[in-house]
């Protein structure tokens, strides 16, 4: 299963390296969201400073919808889904591979967003370990849930509208947890952030488990 996961993840990341959709379109969009928030809230006032953790994660969620959409539009053309099944890959492996490729891209976007927060919002990054841990745990949860809901909406004519509608309510715990942990890291006491890290880890585990178990029956239908 893990070997298959590496193959699928490698395929997705190679496609990304060659097409540069994430780098060329999704990444600038993420930065654009930050700039828009700065326009909406007075960048010199306390509101933006207080809201930074929340804005950061809302931007990540917007990017997630685009990235998931992209991840599954790769499979929709040229009978790729059939090919994936014909290749004899373990369905759980396909899930983990798509999930890993999505997570890697989201982490890259987050690194750039973090730089954006430092440069555009003038924040200092304190408690780097908590920030990094939160990012990894939240990304695992977002990636697993995103991949699962992505396949639920894949190949449908209404997928662009259906995907955010299905995915965003489910990601509410991630938004809450990651935002609180970032608040603790940036403005509060870092030790307050670790319980949220645990919540994010539980979320990621639940979705990874469900994804591995159900992906097979979802892949074989379309």
């Amino acid at each position, binding site marked *: 299963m893990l070997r298959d996961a590496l193959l699928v993840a490698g395929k997705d990341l190679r496609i990304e390296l060659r097409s540069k959709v994430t780098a060329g379109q999704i990444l600038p969009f993420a930065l654009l969201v930050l700039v828009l928030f700065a326009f909406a809230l007075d960048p010199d006032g306390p509101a933006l400073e207080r809201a930074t953790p929340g804005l950061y994660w809302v931007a990540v969620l917007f990017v997630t919808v685009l990235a998931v959409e992209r991840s599954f539009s790769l499979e929709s053309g040229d009978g790729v889904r059939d090919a994936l099944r014909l290749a004899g890959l373990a369905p759980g492996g396909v899930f983990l591979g798509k999930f890993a490729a999505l997570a890697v891209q989201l982490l890259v976007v987050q690194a750039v967003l973090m730089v954006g927060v430092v440069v555009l919002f003038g924040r200092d990054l304190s408690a780097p370990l908590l920030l990094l841990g939160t990012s990894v745990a939240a990304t695992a949860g977002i990636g697993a849930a995103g991949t699962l809901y992505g396949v639920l909406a894949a190949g449908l004519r209404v997928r662009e509208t259906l995907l955010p*509608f*299905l995915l965003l309510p489910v990601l*509410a715990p991630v938004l809450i947890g990651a935002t609180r942990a970032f608040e603790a890291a940036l403005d509060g006491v870092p030790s307050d952030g670790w319980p949220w890290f645990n919540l994010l880890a539980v979320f990621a585990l639940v979705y990874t488990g469900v994804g591995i178990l159900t992906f097979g029956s979802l892949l074989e239908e*379309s």
Partner: protein
Amino acid sequence: MTTTQASAAAQPSTAAAPLGTGSQASRVLGVVVLVAMAVLLWLAFVASPRDAIQGDLVRLLYLHPALAWTAYLACFIATGASIQHLRKRTVGSDLLAHSAVELGAVMTLLTLVTGAIWGRPTWGVYWVWDARLTSTAILFLMLLGYLALHRIDAAPEVRSRRAAVLGVLLVPNVILVHQSVQWWRTLHQDPTLLDRNFDFGTSDLLMFTMVFGFVAISLLFVWLLLHRFRVAWLEHQVESAWLDDAIEARRAEALAESREAGAR
């Protein structure tokens, strides 16, 4: 309610399908529900007194918690039926999950509305970011998501299976959301305690009416779910009958063509 006769080509197992959604048992249940509702109305508005603290607002409590309970019950039924559908892929389990979600969405919306009506005079606001309220609102969105996914333009079994995966996640999702909101509100500030100033000692009748409300609303829920499921079942029959009829018509055409060709 009646429907078109299922075609003769339908599977034998469906030959016994009902032609309406009523049965002897459900009619009896329907009468019981009607009587129970009438009694509940009488208890709530006539027999039970105003509450010392809440005044007439207390009357909403005969309805609101019972509605919330049936909304949660619908979710558990939907999740159970969805697990069953993923395991056995039976049509009935999908129809049951779909019916439960649809009814659950109605009950959840009613829960939110009655809660807001109660909250405005009691807390001074329609809405507070309490764990229970927030997770109920998110639940409502998830139920709508399920219904949206169940309406997609795809083969019935594709639709059913995808919806079933969502259905399986319904209860775990609600638990995750509820827990996270609860921690958020308690770590962040004083928890929004639902200080209802209950003192049931003042009125046994109030307590009795509330319990009776639970029973009456639950019975209503069962009756509605039964009928919704039967309607879904009949819709499914009509769909499959339509396909069988179409195949039959094509066959007849093909036979006629081959006969013509033979005659020439």
